[in-house]
């Protein structure tokens, strides 16, 4: 058995509840909580630093040694960000493109997942397709997009971005949705159809409302992954349509420049959807991030 285990080793004891003397137990508990807090601190610290930096004056973030807590918090960078750097445009682009792509992706992916889930049409093909699409170096896919979109004048347009993203995200969304449709009891829909509803009617009025929470989570995932994408946006957008992620690449040209705090603020804004999801949608994370490869 041991020989087959992947070669991973680490020096932590198994979490078997110790049932020993009380003082030792207390020390262990304190140690355990200290460790957990340390770990949480490690994973939260970068974000906190970014947020704190965005409220510091240049004197403070350019102080040696670094000043950890700003003495004179300022909103100056946010004013600059919106007035001088026009970050609002980038945020707006990110929202428009992510939301539109979410809608388009679901409009295609829901019927696709339904067809596969109910009729078993080509179901085994989908995972293979998604995996192989994920395996390609992203640049391999972006290059032809770039060339063809140049021909059709789709560079620097919302439509172009949405087409490109939808092609990426429809198989992904359909694959997660498929799990929901497979788990859905078909009798409910059949009953509605015997009562005279058409198939589409039964789907829209009976099935989809019952699956609403699952579909909503898929929508959130598609939204965030679109929001987070850098490469496609980098290649297919220009000044007018650039997203927040592309804005980052321009914001922090050199760390000694004044716009240190502006960059920090923009990064903080860029992280907001991720934090909202991690805090409130965490129980769907596993399914979403493994593309349904693992059902909770």
């Amino acid at each position, binding site marked *: 058995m041991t020989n087959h285990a992947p070669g*991973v080793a680490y020096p932590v004891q198994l979490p078997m509840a110790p049932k020993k003397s009380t003082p030792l137990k207390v020390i262990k508990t304190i140690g355990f909580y200290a460790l957990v807090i340390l770990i949480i601190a490690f*994973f939260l610290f970068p974000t906190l630093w970014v947020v704190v930096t965005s409220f510091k004056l240049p004197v403070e973030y350019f102080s*040696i040694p670094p000043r950890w807590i700003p003495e004179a918090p300022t909103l100056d960078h946010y004013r600059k960000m919106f007035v001088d750097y026009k970050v609002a445009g980038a945020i707006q682009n990110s929202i428009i493109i992510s939301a539109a792509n979410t809608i388009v992706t679901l409009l295609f992916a829901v019927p696709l997942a339904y067809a596969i889930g109910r009729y078993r049409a080509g179901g085994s093909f989908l995972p293979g397709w998604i995996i192989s699409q*994920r395996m390609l170096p992203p640049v391999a*896919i972006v*290059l032809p997009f770039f060339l063809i979109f140049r021909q059709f004048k789709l560079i620097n347009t919302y439509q172009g971005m949405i087409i490109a993203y939808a092609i990426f995200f429809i198989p992904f969304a359909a694959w997660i949705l498929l799990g929901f449709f497979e788990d859905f009891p078909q009798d409910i829909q059949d009953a509605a159809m015997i009562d005279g509803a058409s198939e589409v009617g039964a789907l829209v009025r009976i099935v989809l409302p019952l699956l609403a929470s699952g579909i909503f989570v898929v929508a959130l995932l598609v939204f965030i992954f679109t929001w987070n994408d850098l490469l496609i946006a980098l290649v297919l957008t220009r000044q007018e349509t650039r997203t927040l992620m592309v804005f*980052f690449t321009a914001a922090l040209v050199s760390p000694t420049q004044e716009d240190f705090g502006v960059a920090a603020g923009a990064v903080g804004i860029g992280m907001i959807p*991720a934090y909202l999801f991690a805090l409130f949608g965490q129980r769907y994370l596993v399914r979403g991030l493994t593309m349904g490869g693992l059902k909770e």
Partner: protein
Amino acid sequence: MGQRSESVRLTAAEGRPSVWPSGQAYAKGKARRRRLTPFYFAGPAVIFVFVGSIFMALYALYISFFDYQLQRPGAPRFVGLKNYAEAFTDAKLWTSIWQTFTIAVPALALEIVFGLALAMLLNRSFRGRAIAISLIVTPVMVSSAAAGMAWRLLLEPRYGPVNDILSRLSGQPVQIGWLSSVEWARPAIVLTDVWHMTPFVMLLVLAGLGSISDDIYGAAKIDGASGWRLFVDITLPLLKPILVLVILLRGIDLVRIFDLIFIMTKGGPGTITKTVSYYIYENGLSFFRIGYASAMAWIVAIFFIIFSKFYLDYLRKESR
């Protein structure tokens, strides 16, 4: 079969005399309609996605046979396999593949070790567990671009907190140029990715641990196993399917690593962090050698697909 009997039943219910020709025709038409239904639903998506991506892939293959340089006037010139020949002898391409692995392998190993450790630590009931896990997984949904930016601020040699912490701990000034020195650039990328994705590994392992029944541990403890042996002999083998999935998902993402490189180092200093994705990007979209970049993209894609096919076959054999 089901559809046919259903339609026969329907004709009977409508009180038609069972005149077979018309009944059969009715049944046939209905059956065909039923058979086509999934295509009405799946059709639009299939056409959109498949036509879209297959067309794109074939177009990339097509231009890979041309000397296609955007900034040079004149039509692209057909050069046959010349781009492929150039790629196979391009030392920079092979160096970039090697450098990709020098980042991907340590990152993957660390993420699995730490992810496992965290999951084992948190796989017990304690007060505040749900909140602790929620807070730990926050980096996962953050974009690579934002993660890279955040760590650029943290790793800033003079004003960043990482060197500050190291200075305080060691008692002497530490001024590591994380992203500007040849020795530290790759560890810096690895560190960022470990911060970003270790919680993801942890989540998956936690899900796997949740499905292991306590009875197994009970039985093993009766047999006298404890601590480390319990982990190696029981937990790890039972986690194997999860670890396989983790290695596949993280491995794929790590060999394609681009965003962190683009944000943090742009392949530098020198070419020490120039991964294969970044090298192809640079050729295609900075130097606009589109034909050559497409050829490299195809070579690398085939290389990765073969590699992962062997990996999957190997796993399938192992798991039997």
